[in-house]
């Protein structure tokens, strides 16, 4: 079964491009324009990995991560951001994100991160 990857980004072109890239690698992708939209969707449980933008108008990517961890969802998180600030990066990693990628990033890097995330998740699930 193909892993489901949820992409949360307020920027439409990034959302579309990321969906396109991941789909081309054979992943199932769900895109959401905001964290609230994602939380209200039915994809929370089936998401094997979450790729989220840090800066979003209402709920930020970090908030989303905290919220989901608080709700008991342990899907691995990959942050992508156009403002690669060090303190935000530290915060993100501390909160449990797999990686913190600055836009623009190479597609291969993202794929690698997803693979790591999914393998970890599989490892976790196997335990």
């Amino acid at each position: 079964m193909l892993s489901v990857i949820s992409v949360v980004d307020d920027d439409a072109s990034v959302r579309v491009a990321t969906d396109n890239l991941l789909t081309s690698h054979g992943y199932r992708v769900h895109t959401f324009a905001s964290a609230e939209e994602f939380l209200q969707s039915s994809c929370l449980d089936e998401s094997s990995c979450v790729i989220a933008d840090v800066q979003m108008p209402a709920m930020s990517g970090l908030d989303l991560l905290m919220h989901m961890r608080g709700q008991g969802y342990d899907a691995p998180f990959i942050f992508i951001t156009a403002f690669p600030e060090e303190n935000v990066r530290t915060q993100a990693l501390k909160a449990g994100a797999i990686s913190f990628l600055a836009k623009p990033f190479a597609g291969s890097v993202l794929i690698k991160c997803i693979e790591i995330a999914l393998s970890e998740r599989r490892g976790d699930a196997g335990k």
Partner: protein
Amino acid sequence: MIESDLRQAWKKPHRIASYPIAVLSVVVAIVAVELITRSLHAEPIASLMLCAVILAAWFGGFGPAVLAITLALLAFHYYLVPPSNSFTWKHNLLVVGISEVPRLILFSITSLFVAFAISAQKNATEALRHSGADLQTAIEGQKRVEAALRRSEMYLTEAQRLSRTGSFGWNVLTGKIVWSDETFRIFQCDRTTIPTVEFIIQRTHPDDRAAVQDILQQASSKGSDFDLEFRLAMPDGSVKYVHAVARAERDASGSVRFVGAVTDVTDAKEAERKLRRSETYLAESQRLSHTSSWAWDVRRREFVYRSTGVYYIFGFDPEKGAVPLQTFRDRIHPDDRVRNVEALSRAIREKADFEVDFRIVLPDGSIKHVHSVGHPVVNSDGEVIEMIGTHLDVTEQYEAQEKLQRAFDEIKKSEDRLRLVIDTIPTLVWRAGPEGIPDFLNEPALYYTGLSLDQAETGWPRAFHPDDKKGMLQKWSAIRETGTRGGLEARLRRFDGEYRWFLFEAEPMHDEAGNIVKWYGSATDIEDLKQTEVALRESEQRFRDYAETASDWLWETGPDHRVTRISEHYNAVGIVPSRITGLARWDVATDVESEPEKWRLHRAVHDAHQPFRDFVYRAVSANGSPVYVRSSGKPFFDASGNFLGYRGTGTDITATIRADHAEEALRNAQAELAHVTRVTALGELTASIAHEVNQPLAAVIANAEACLRWLDNKTPDLAKARRSAEWVIEDGIRASEVIRRVRALAKKSEMEKALLNVNHVIQEVIALVQRKLSSHSVSLRKELAPSLPMVLGDRVQLQQVIINLVMNGIEAMEPVMDRPRELVIRSGQDETGRVLVSVTDCGVGISAENANQLFNAFFTTKSSGLGMGLSICRSIVEAHGGRLSICRNEGPGATFQFVLPLHQEDAL
């Protein structure tokens, strides 16, 4: 002595009386013979004659007995010689019968014998009897004498006691001295004492001993009388004066005996001493009182007495003996001599007292004034025999009187002058008794009130304004009660009925006992002063009203800018005035540190003694909440221009500030936001630009990789690849769109152009970059041209340009460690009159090749940054019609400068 006298008195009458006895006894014998012869015829002549002789001898003694014998013999002669018995002269006297002769002889012898024996017997008996009687008498006499003696002795003793005179006897040979009681008393020793010369010498006062001893020695050796006075030193320490007088007697043996008296003359001496002293006192007192006394004998026409004072008054020395009358008279002033004599003559003539003043001219030319008073002494015949009187030296009194007179004249003169002054000075002068009732008003006071002097008492109080009178009287009596100087103000009616304000002042005058005898006062017209004062007060009140209405409080500071006075309603703000007093404004304010530039300027204004207006600062109220104060002040100076401090007003604008705060904060926030977004665009914006650009770039890369992926599939999905490529193009377009927008951001014609003073813009920028400057240890130097023409521009955009240039400068100096980091901002005009602003740093500088690219977008020498800053700056400056340029410094660093064209209207 008495005894012998008595005996003589006894003998004398006896002898004279005894002879008739002899005659009588012979006669009796003859008669008997005759009788016997005739009767008895016997002739017992002899026997009877013998009896007669015996009788005569018995009673008369031997003398009468001899007489009796003689008579008996005559009788015999009668009987015996013939013619016997006849009395005729018998010629033959001696013819006696022989027979008769022996009888006669026998008879004679017998009778002589008998007479002798009898008279002897008689004498013896008589003598015995007499001596018995004498003895008796003598005993009685002795008794009487003794009584008399005792009495006399008592008298003597008493007399001696009373006269204090003792008697003494001194036998020089035996050395025995006999003293009377009084003498013992005088010598103060009891009667058991045996007086001796040694004792006397011992009692004698030591000072007199030698003299006394000498006199006694001489007197005793010469046997001469002595009279001496000496002192006795008594055992009780007192001293007695005694006067001893003695008469020398020499007895048969030639030894000298003294009998004398000694008198205690202490009292007399004391009296004498007192007298002498009182005489001395009198003389002295006369001398001191310049008095002297005299007595003029009218008949002898001369002075019988002149006290020493008379001599002194006339300038003579009484010690040098008598002075002739004429010499005295010559000393009297020639003009007074006649008058003197006349006065004396008249007094004698009229038997009246006289009194005369005359002058004495002394040899040195000085003049003495003498007041002489005399009194006539009248004898029993009513005749004036003496004038007695005194001279009184009244020179001093006379001179004093002269001086007094002169002083009076002076006083009179000065009084006239004073009166002139008092009546001339333009002040009302008054005087009142201790009870406050006026008794004198000077001319101006009389003129002003229209009163005459005799109306002062009632008229003066009535001239006071009815409204002031009660208060005036109360104050006036209060002043009099305190007894010290005081004053009051009241209105006084002028003669024409107009009332004017006066200041009344009163000063008490005291007598020697400290009682107030008079009140002296003045009344000064203060009407004009009063009106000025009222006007002044009104004016002050008016200004106070304005000030208080326009502000919350009024304040005043001293030369040190510390508060000296502050109006009470400062409390309204919640700041306690007592806490403010003594502090400067910057001591009270709480924003001094946060706004140093504002306060520096404010203090500079103070130091220059310039006025200031609407200076706003923050302070803290009593409850700790911040208050905002708006203060305006103006310096004030004294007459000579010395700065004294500031006066001004303060207003609590906390409420206003709070009311406006939201709006202002909002506006500020908006402005700030706009400002920040725009101003910090050059720093901050790079981030947002990056974000804007990175988003499409990320999309481009992702889509491109996806495109390749779709193409690389075993069965290439061309549709998806195409789709991806299309997205790549869209995202690329989008990215360039971002860049275009950024550039347009600067170019956008959102400019809010206004007339600006570039210097102000620079000041605002400096305030914004202050923190950045200090955190990078950069000192800022301003060289701003004082009067620049205005430019038309967008304040915020120009600020952006300057900030960017400043930030670039700061960053360019960041590596500089070996020299001070100084940034210079200049303003001025270039040769064409355009306004020029330059920012010079002393940083790393710009290389020649870099200089050409500087203003291209995205060129940067920094590791971080997009190189948009200078590009945007140039866009802005060019949008203002100006030009941004760079020029290299002579020293290290770079200078960026831009010029702006003048405002069109200014240009014209």
